[in-house]
């Protein structure tokens, strides 16, 4: 009997596996560059034009800033929130149930968890890109008043990472794609209005301000305000702590729940 022991199996490391999944998403995203890369620039453009020409004439200043300036700071991150929320609800669900993309990827040397963490990493990257796009448009309007506002790019990464984990957790429960409408109407849309983007949280009555403190979008927006030289309600330390704890905890929960849908 001839026994030839095979060489040790050179399975790629966790980092390489996750970045290979990230790379798949980058390639698919950039394969339709025009339809994917233009909207993140157009959206803030239209928004600012609308506010500048319309609403801005009535609301002159907010929290000591011209209103358009106040709004601009928060807008850097809301686009990251929206893109992450779509990416990991509709996007993840379609890859899971309709395109069967994960089935194909699970046949390679990747685990279900690799797939999900790689996807979240991509979502975060996309958020950084979207925040960067908004900053470029803001700069064209002369609304980038300090280089510190470039912190919007890493904050966009964290915002999208955070909303990616929430969206993925929601997706892990959803069996009908239409149910995501509830998530957007009842959770994401209110966040836009009550997270310090359109008016300062300091104006909220004391009795409800703590609710805003629990909500995810509040914290990156506060950090962005701090970077732009504005006021925070909860303090930079607490806001950072929220992000640093929230993302891994909700992320782990979401990935583990999704694994149960990927491995029968």
């Amino acid at each position, binding site marked *: 009997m001839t026994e030839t022991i095979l060489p040790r199996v*050179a399975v790629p490391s966790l980092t390489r596996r996750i970045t290979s999944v990230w790379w798949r998403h980058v390639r698919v995203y950039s394969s339709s560059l025009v339809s994917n890369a233009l909207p993140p620039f157009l959206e803030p453009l239209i928004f600012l034009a609308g506010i500048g020409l319309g609403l801005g004439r009535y609301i002159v200043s907010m929290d000591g800033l011209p209103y358009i300036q106040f709004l601009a700071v928060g807008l850097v991150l809301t686009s990251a929130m929206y893109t992450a929320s779509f990416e990991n609800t509709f996007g993840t669900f379609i890859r899971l149930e309709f395109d069967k993309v994960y089935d194909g990827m699970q046949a390679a040397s990747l685990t279900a968890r690799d797939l999900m963490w790689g996807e979240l990493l991509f979502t975060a990257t996309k958020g950084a890109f979207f925040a960067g796009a908004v900053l470029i448009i803001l700069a064209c309007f002369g609304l980038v008043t300090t280089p510190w506002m470039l912190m919007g790019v890493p904050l966009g990464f964290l915002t999208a990472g955070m909303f990616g984990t929430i969206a993925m957790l929601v997706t892990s429960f959803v069996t009908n794609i239409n149910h995501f409408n509830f998530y957007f109407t009842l959770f994401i849309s209110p966040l836009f209005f009550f997270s310090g983007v359109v008016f300062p949280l300091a104006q909220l009555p004391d009795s409800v301000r703590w609710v805003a403190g629990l909500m995810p979008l509040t914290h990156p927006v506060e950090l962005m305000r701090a970077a732009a030289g504005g006021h925070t309600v909860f303090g930079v330390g607490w806001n950072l702590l929220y992000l640093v704890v929230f993302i891994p905890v909700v992320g782990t929960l979401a990935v583990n729940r999704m694994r149960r849908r990927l491995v029968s």
Partner: protein
Amino acid sequence: MAYTGAMPAIVVQNVTKTYSGGFEAVKGINFEVETGEFFGLLGPNGAGKSSLMRMLYNKSERSAGSIEVLGYDPAQNELEIKFLSGIVPQDDNLDVDLDVVTNLKVYARFYGLKAKAARARIDELLDFLELSEKKESKIRELSGGMRRRLIIARALLNDPKLLILDEPTTGLDPQVRHLIWDKLRLLKKQGLTLMLTTHYMEEAFQLCDRLAIIDHGVKVLEGKPIDLVKSHIEAYVLEIIQREASAALTYSGPVRRETIQDRVLFFSDSAAELETIASALHPGDFYLRQSNLEDVFLKTTGRSLHD
């Protein structure tokens, strides 16, 4: 334990699978696949074939029993198994937004292949599966047969020791099916171990060294295709298409009669016996032939629908 070429490539022992809803898809199955062997898993829809295949690479977790693939337990070493094996899943799940070569490049990264090595390997595989001309094509522009071949190419990227194919030719035209068969035979010649599930008896008969028939989650037969036909069914079949035509037939001797809806089948080891019966019939009302694997399959799994 380190896997050696002298060991079986796959060992499945007393494996069961009960899904969370309580459905028992696999009820204690045993089989082994030798290194270098081409092994087939046959069974009606819902027999547990795909469940078994998925448990080999932990796409599905077994409920009980033990599995060893290339010396590894899928529950512990899923990554090693997938690194060393090529898997062709049942559904087409290519990235439709990417072209042919990018699909493969992206996939090569999942194995940690370096870009340069990947490029060479991709050219080689596209050539092998006769897809070189489609290199730049979008997936949407490919026919079903091309997509299947591309998925097989994808499974071969990391130069696997074992190829697992779940219904690789379902829905394909005969030309493509034969092309795929030829390629699979070539791979076997190169020393690969292959395992496939199929609904096509012809496919199993042509390709497999050995096969197992499973039904309702249990193994009902196992052996070499030719031996199964020899030992589990009479050598000849007389098929009578018009039931009325058989009404007045008289026969004696070792003949087994089976009635299926509007058809009557006579099975016998003696062709002469069946010819005698047929002599009373109009030509065109009957068909005398050798029995085949499909007859064995239908005899062991029954003729009722399994869906």
